[in-house]
């Protein structure tokens, strides 16, 4: 025990980073911190409350929360089974399917929005029959916002959950199956609880991404207060007409995102602030 502890301490000393690395890392931190400080410095604090409670702000805030929660729910419903299939089942072309499902992660969101048009727009592959038969039109609707957000955000959940499923010890599952549990029961009662931290982390990441979605939303769903104008769109448009309001809305979004990331690290990932690589 004691020997081990000493050894650990010695290796910790050996692993202390060189000064140059610390300096560069500090520059990186400043690089991220400065824009936020700048924002806080510019915000017209005396009018902040009145700017935040204007109908435009409140409508955008409410719409953003509503649509991003829908997008998160859809991401979970479709993303968990997708992650499961990608993690557990070898089938021909899996790598291609996987890349396809994660493509929107690296795609410029505007391109994603254009692609959504061609599929779910009024004249799109699926959108055309949808409109002709049921009169359902996704662009310029709240459903269109949810669709765009889900398209952009779901990969975050899929990646996180898939990684967890791959790393999972499968023995408890096998044991449950041997003991007569059905596949579904084993999934629900053994697998799901085991990946819960990853599921929550993935859902939160997807939610945060959906909340911040701009490019695909404005391209596919347009911009109308109360229907498709989410917070990021409101910030972008207010920048021209009412910069103070744009700054206040930005601070609200930053506060939400920052809070989410903080709680994500501490509460749900287990081993808060763990340092090092392999454990």
């Amino acid at each position: 025990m004691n020997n081990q502890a000493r050894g650990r301490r010695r290796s910790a000393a050996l692993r202390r980073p060189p000064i140059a690395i610390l300096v560069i890392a500090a520059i990186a931190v400043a690089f991220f911190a400065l824009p936020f400080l700048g924002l806080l410095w510019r915000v017209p604090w005396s009018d902040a409350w009145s700017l935040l409670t204007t109908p435009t702000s409140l409508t955008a805030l409410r719409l953003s929360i509503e649509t991003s929660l829908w997008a998160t729910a859809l991401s979970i419903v479709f993303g968990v089974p997708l992650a499961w299939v990608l993690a557990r089942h070898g089938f021909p072309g899996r790598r291609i399917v996987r890349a396809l499902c994660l493509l929107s992660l690296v795609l410029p969101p505007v391109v994603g929005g254009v692609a959504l048009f061609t599929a779910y727009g009024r004249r799109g592959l699926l959108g055309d029959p949808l409109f002709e038969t049921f009169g359902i039109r996704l662009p310029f609707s709240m459903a269109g916002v949810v669709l765009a957000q889900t398209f952009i955000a779901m990969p975050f959940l899929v990646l996180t959950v898939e990684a967890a499923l791959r790393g999972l010890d499968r023995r408890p599952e096998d044991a449950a199956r041997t003991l007569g549990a059905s596949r579904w029961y084993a999934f629900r009662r053994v697998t799901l609880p085991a990946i819960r931290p990853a599921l929550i982390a993935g859902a939160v990441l997807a939610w945060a991404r959906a909340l911040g979605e701009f490019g695909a939303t404005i391209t596919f769903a347009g911009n109308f207060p109360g229907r498709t104008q989410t917070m990021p769109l409101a910030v972008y448009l207010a920048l021209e007409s009412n910069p103070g309001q744009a700054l206040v809305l930005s601070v609200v979004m930053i506060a939400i995102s920052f809070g989410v990331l903080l709680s994500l690290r501490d509460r749900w990932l287990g081993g808060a602030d763990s340092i090092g690589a392999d454990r």
Partner: protein
Amino acid sequence: MRRSLSVRVLRIAFALMSFLGLVAATATACGSSNSSEGSSNSGSLAGSLTVSAASSLQGAFNAMAAAFEQAHPEVDVMVNFGASSTLAQQIIAGAPVDVFASADETNMTKVSNARLLSGTPTIFATNSLEIIVRRGNPSKIAALSDLSKSGVVYITCAPDVPIGTYGAQVLQKAGVTLSPASFEPDVKGIVAKVSAGEADAGIVYATDVSATKGAAEGVAIPANINVVAKYPIAAISSSSNNAAAQAWIAFVAGSDGQQILAQFGFGAS
């Protein structure tokens, strides 16, 4: 060795961050390349010239940039297109721009009021408005009053964007009240969504309709209720390449520039 979940999540986060970092690095690299180079040799024109121009000028200014660079091979022209309101806001926030060409006088005045213009703006082109409709005009729109028919998806721009104001003025003159489905960030957003068939109609510049090359169609608005959009141009006082900026403005206002503008359907100043 099994890695813990948090490590995996962190790795993913790192991958994402490095990707975003890459994007930012490319963006800044592009941004810094237009800093002053040619200001020292004042004899012949050289260096880079950044022009911020209204979206509706896209076709004409791209053609002009090519012609200008041919006449002045040492000058590298970069045109930044956007809603005039966005461009004005960028200039006021300190964007390194040499020339501003706006689609209305309101946004030029914003820059002027911030004391960022060198010299007074000159009007170099005019434009009229048209109703843009989908190819084949399936909604059978023949006049402004048809826009209020049920089922017609009409889109416009926010009132800060010149075309948003112009469109509202035209509708007011015609006595038509509409509820738009969307406020697009600039006029190209209207054109794109109507061309794609997602929206049925919008009010845009006549030059935008011809620029779609048949992807969308135009319906004329009678002259008595139409609006003449005036395009002012001016050099920005913080320009690091004032010689090239003045040469660009002279080129745009001169016969070569006016000829190109006419080709793209703009009216003479």
